[in-house]
Structure formats: C-alpha cells, structure tokens
C-alpha cells in the first residue's frame, strides 16, 4: 500500500472465488481504473479470502471497509464510476458485512471480535499473500526477530505457556507444554511439523489461512524451531489443496531470499528450513502419529503412544506437531505478549477460534470469533440466521464432532465448557441444519464417511463403522427391528472406549448424540 492512495480495492483470490473468475475481475478493474485516470489514487491488491463465501467474486474497499459480492465483468465500469467518480456506495452488489478494522483494544469487547479485528485472520483479505513485503509491512517477521535476538528459547516457551494457547487441531492440548516436551528431548536433529492435512468434512479454515497469509505459518514454525531446537520444518498438506501448496512454496522461496528462512536467519546462528510434503487422500493422516507414518512413506496407520512424538516422532527423532491455526497464533503472541493474548476468549481457553459455518444459514463463511461465544451468537450475529425453516441441530467439529440441539444454543463454545458436557470443540466446522434434515439419513452419510476412511488397523473401528452403517441402512429402508437402537448404542460406546486412535474413538460421537437427543425420530422410522 502506498501513501498517496486514496483507496485500495482488495480482490479476494482463493479456491472459491477463482472459480467465479476473480482473476479476470482483477484485470478488468485495473483496466477500468486506468481508463478513468485514477491509477495514482486507487490501487488494486490481490489478497486471500475476504470472508463472505458463496457470493461469487468478492471485493473489499479500504478505508471505507465496504464489501461487494457477486461482482461480474459487466458491473465493473459502472462500479468504478459510482464508487470513485461519484463517490457513493454501489448499492447493487453491496453486502452487509464489513472489512475488519485494525486491532484496537480501547474499543474492546472480549466476546465480539468483529468490533476489534482478528488475530489469526488479521491479514487475510488485507495483504497480498504472494508478496512477502506486504507481510513485512504489517509487522511480519518482527516476532521472529524479537525471538532470535532478545529472547532465549526457554523464554519463548514460557511466553507460549503463559498465553494459555491450546492446540487448534481439535484436542486442545496446551501448546507451550507440548513445546517444552520436545525442547527437553536430547536426540538431534529435531523436527517441527505443521499439520495441514485438513480433511474433516466441512472444515476449510486451514486452507483459507494458508491461501490468505502463508508467511504467518512459516514465521510461527520458525519460532517453534528456535524454541525446541529444531532446524527443519515440514508442512504436511493435502494433495487436493493446490493453491495452498503453490502459495506456501512461493512464500518459502521469498523468505529464503530475504534471509528469513535458511542459514543464519537475520544474521544469527539459527538455521531453519521448511519443506513441503504432499498427502495422497487419507482422512486419518490428520492424526499426528498417522501423519508421521505417512510422512515416512508408509501406510497411514496410527502408532502406539507413548512414545509421544516429542520423544520419538518423524524418523524416530523428537518432533513437535501443531495445526496450521496454532502456528498462526504464535507470531502475534510473541509480538504482543501473553497478557495481551489472554484478554481474548475465556480463562481456560484464551484467544480466538476460526470457524467455517455452513448449512441452512443465510451467510455461510469463514469467521474468527472469541473463544466462549455461543452457538446462538454464531447463528444469529454472524451467519445471518436460519435460511429457511427453523433450527433443528448443529454439528460442531465436523463429522467426528458432536451434535447440539436447541437446548445447547447458549453453551459457550470453548474447550472447558464443552468438556464438561462430554463434548469436544473439534476442527472448527459448524454445520447448521433445519428441521427438513432426517437424523437417520444424516447419520448414514456421517458413518459412510468413516467406513471409507477407517484405516483398518484396529477391529472396533474397522468392523464397528461397517456394522453401524448396515444397521442404519436397514432402519432407513424400513427393515429395522426392535433392539437395533440398543445395538447401535452398544457398538458406538465400544468404539469410543476401545478404538486405537482418536479417529475411531470420535467416529460414533454424532451417532450417540442423536440417539440421545432424537430417539423419537429413530423410533418413528422403526415403527413404520
């Protein structure tokens, strides 16, 4: 961004908008601005996801923070005329959402991030993810500099511990504590791994973080490497995420050129390189020990813990594995301090959480909200309410997650509050459903997924998922019999108690929840 600009137009380029022709729109915008002689006043910046999805090509304008959706090539001439010559909003395509403002703690409401900006997605939709100078321009790599030059590795781990940051992959293990285990391990070399094998159905937050702000992840990984004493990092990423792979590769190259990755980073004696590993289509590889097997070129099956990866991970060396979103929190924490971070969220779960909200709602999309916000707030304040009919249930944390019915609308969504109910926060997907959804049909689809994705290592998961699917299929085709529901419960509970890895343990979550919350619906079909 240059000073003389009166306005900046941000064009959101991500997996969704590219499909609607975002790149063409960007070119057309520049042509039209040139035609109107506005080149020195209005700049066009390519950026990651701006927020609203399912709205075609989305563009935003600073400083007015307006967001426009469903922009087509035919609109552009009129749009430039209206917005920049006549100086009024172009109402035809204006969306209700606003671009984020800078973090301003004076106007801080701990429960509504929309009023004070964001931590993880702060740069997404604001800077060009393919230009490292823009990342540096908003304070990027400053935290790495502070870490390397002013702090010892122990101090960094202490800051992360004090911040209370918990792993954003789903389990919520305290990040600082995890780092301290790997730091204590004696064997070298050690490894830092970023788990970007995002496969939980309905979750695509990590993809949008990688597409929108790749350097933030690299910076977080490098700080982790310094803290635990590792000189190599790997990003294990899904083979389907082509744009993420491309942007991360470019980011690594650019950072190496500027000496922010590679040998003697920022003139210190710390070396850190980052490599990319590409997955090949397997959900279970998101589990950290499975991911390690896959990275070593074996079948994606989980390993027995202990030993934990911190002791014996990649190639049997000490390894620290964190999720994309977790790494994206690191630089802001090091830069602003643990106390700053703790101002967000709840006491037990500080910080924010990135969710993808989907289903029967008016505004599906990507949001970053304070930990501890309720489902009701998400549906009515962020998702624009239920799109048709009334709220029936929500699945939080993807297919392996839990089901919340209307009585849970006011439960705070954070690790502790959900744990008390026997639930987990999961991956960050929230699927909202209205009363037209049949619970049995929904469960059939959930379990079918696990039948396909179970790795086959342990019996409860391999056989359990299959039996559950067969019984659900019988019930839905009218061939169910009395006692089926008890069998389902027994199977689900056994899987939960005896499966080898968290995948098998969490596969029956939604089944058990729906059996408890909607027994009438199962019985109705059984009686038919």
């Amino acid at each position, binding site marked *: 961004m240059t000073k003389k600009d009166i306005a900046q137009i941000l064009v959101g380029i991500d997996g969704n908008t590219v499909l609607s022709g975002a790149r063409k729109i960007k070119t057309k915008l520049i042509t039209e601005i040139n035609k109107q002689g506005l080149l020195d006043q209005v700049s066009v910046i390519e950026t990651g996801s701006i927020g609203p999805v399912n709205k075609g090509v989305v563009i935003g304008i600073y400083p007015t923070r307006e967001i426009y959706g469903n922009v087509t090539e035919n609109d552009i001439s009129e749009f430039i005329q209206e917005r920049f010559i006549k100086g009024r909003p172009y109402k035809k395509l204006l969306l209700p959402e606003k671009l984020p403002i800078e973090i301003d703690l004076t106007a801080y409401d701990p429960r509504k991030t929309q009023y004070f900006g964001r931590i993880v997605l702060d740069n997404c939709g604001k800077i060009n993810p393919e230009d490292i100078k823009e990342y540096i321009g908003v304070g990027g790599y400053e935290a790495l500099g502070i870490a390397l030059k002013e702090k010892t590795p122990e101090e960094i781990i202490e800051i992360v511990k004090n911040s209370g940051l918990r792993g954003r992959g789903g389990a919520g293990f305290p990040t600082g504590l995890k780092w301290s285990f790997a730091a204590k391990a004696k064997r070298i070399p050690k490894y830092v791994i970023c788990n970007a094998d*995002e*496969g939980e159905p*309905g979750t695509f937050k990590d*993809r949008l973080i990688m597409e929108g702000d790749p350097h933030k992840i690299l910076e977080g990984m490098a700080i982790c490497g310094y803290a635990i004493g590792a000189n190599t990092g790997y990003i294990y990423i899904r083979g*389907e995420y082509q744009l993420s792979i491309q942007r991360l590769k470019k980011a690594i190259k650019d950072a190496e050129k500027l000496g922010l990755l590679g040998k003697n980073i920022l003139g210190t004696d710390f070396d850190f390189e980052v490599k990319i590993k590409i997955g*090949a*289509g397997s*959900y279970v590889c998101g589990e950290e020990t499975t991911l390690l097997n896959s990275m070593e070129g074996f079948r994606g099956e989980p390993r027995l813990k202990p030993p934990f990866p911190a002791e014996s991970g990649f190639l049997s060396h000490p390894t620290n594995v964190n999720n994309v979103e977790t790494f994206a929190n690191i630089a802001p924490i090091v830069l602003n301090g643990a106390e700053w971070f703790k101002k967000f969220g709840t006491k037990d779960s500080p910080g924010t959480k990135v969710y993808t909200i*989907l289903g029967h709602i008016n505004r599906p999309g990507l949001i970053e909200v304070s930990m501890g916000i309720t489902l009701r707030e998400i549906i009515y304040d962020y998702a624009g309410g239920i799109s048709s009919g009334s709220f029936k249930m929500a699945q939080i944390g993807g297919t392996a997650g839990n089901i919340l019915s209307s009585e849970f609308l006011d439960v705070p969504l954070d690790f502790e509050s959900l744990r008390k109910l026997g639930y987990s926060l999961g991956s960050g997907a929230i699927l909202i459903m209205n009363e037209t959804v049949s619970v049995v049909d929904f469960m059939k689809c959930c379990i079918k997924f696990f039948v396909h994705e179970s*790795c086959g290592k342990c019996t409860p998961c391999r056989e359990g998922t299959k039996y559950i699917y067969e019984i659900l299929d019988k019930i839905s085709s009218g061939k169910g019999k009395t006692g089926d529901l008890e069998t389902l419960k027994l199977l689900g509970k056994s899987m939960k108690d005896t499966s080898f890895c968290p995948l098998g343990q969490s596969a029956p979550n939604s089944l058990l929840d729906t059996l408890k919350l909607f027994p009438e619906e199962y019985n109705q079909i059984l009686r038919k």
Partner: protein
Amino acid sequence: MTVKDIVNKYKNKRENLLLILHEIQNCHPQNYLSKEDIELLSKEIKIPVSDIVGTASFYSMFSFTPRGKYIIRVCESLPCHLLGAQTIFKAIETKLGIKEGETTKDGLFTLEGTSCLGICSVAPAIMINDEAYGNLDEEKIGKILDQIREKESKNND
C-alpha cells in the same frame, strides 16, 4: 520423466515414496500406477512390490487401473450431501453412461466419489483433475462436461 529419473530426483528415499508415486502416476498417460512402473520402482528404490502396493493402495488418490484423461471426483461428504451431491452423482452417471469407479469407452472421463474437498462453501462441489467446480446442479454439470468434450474433439481435428 522415467521412473529412474523420478526416484533420483527424490534421492531414493523411502520417506519420499508418496511424492514419487504421485509423480509416476501423473507421468502416465492413463493416470494410474501400472504394474510395469511399480516393478521398475521396486528395483530402483529397493522396496518389495508387495510393500509399495500395500502402501499405495491405502491412499485414495492412487489408482491401479487405467483411468480417463479427466478424473471427476464428486464430494460425498455431509455439506455437499445436504445440498444435493447425490443428484449430481446421478446426473453424471446418466450423462456419461458410467458408474462410480468406471471410465468412459473413449477414455476421456473416470468417475470417482471422494471425501470432503474443502470447498464446502460452494457445495455441492466436484473436482475435475486439478480444477474445482461448485454450486452445481444438473444443468451446470451437463454444460461443464459438454465443454470438455467439445474442447477435446477440436483438439483431435
């Protein structure tokens, strides 16, 4: 690139096996891991054929049967399911006259089901090779397939 070149590029390391398999598959005109290629790979990298097949067969992105030039992967996960993925599946089956896992006679299309593609915001969604398509209905998917057919027949003229 030959199998040997690919193995050399990845320094003959087991930990690069998935990357090697990806590249071998991409280099094959029929988009799959052929018996010959796997045997060659086994000799080069010194891993038994049974071990390579055992590993590759675990991952859904690898195929052991010849596939079409265009691989259509229809997302079958919940967000797409709720918004009509089954209709899309049937529309493609009817249009191309093939079932899941099959390839059209002209060798152009292979139809596969897949787990979440991470583009749920434009559900129901599919991928054709590396291109993603979203917000689909029967009409749109018909047009997309027609366009590919048209492009291909022009190339052959």
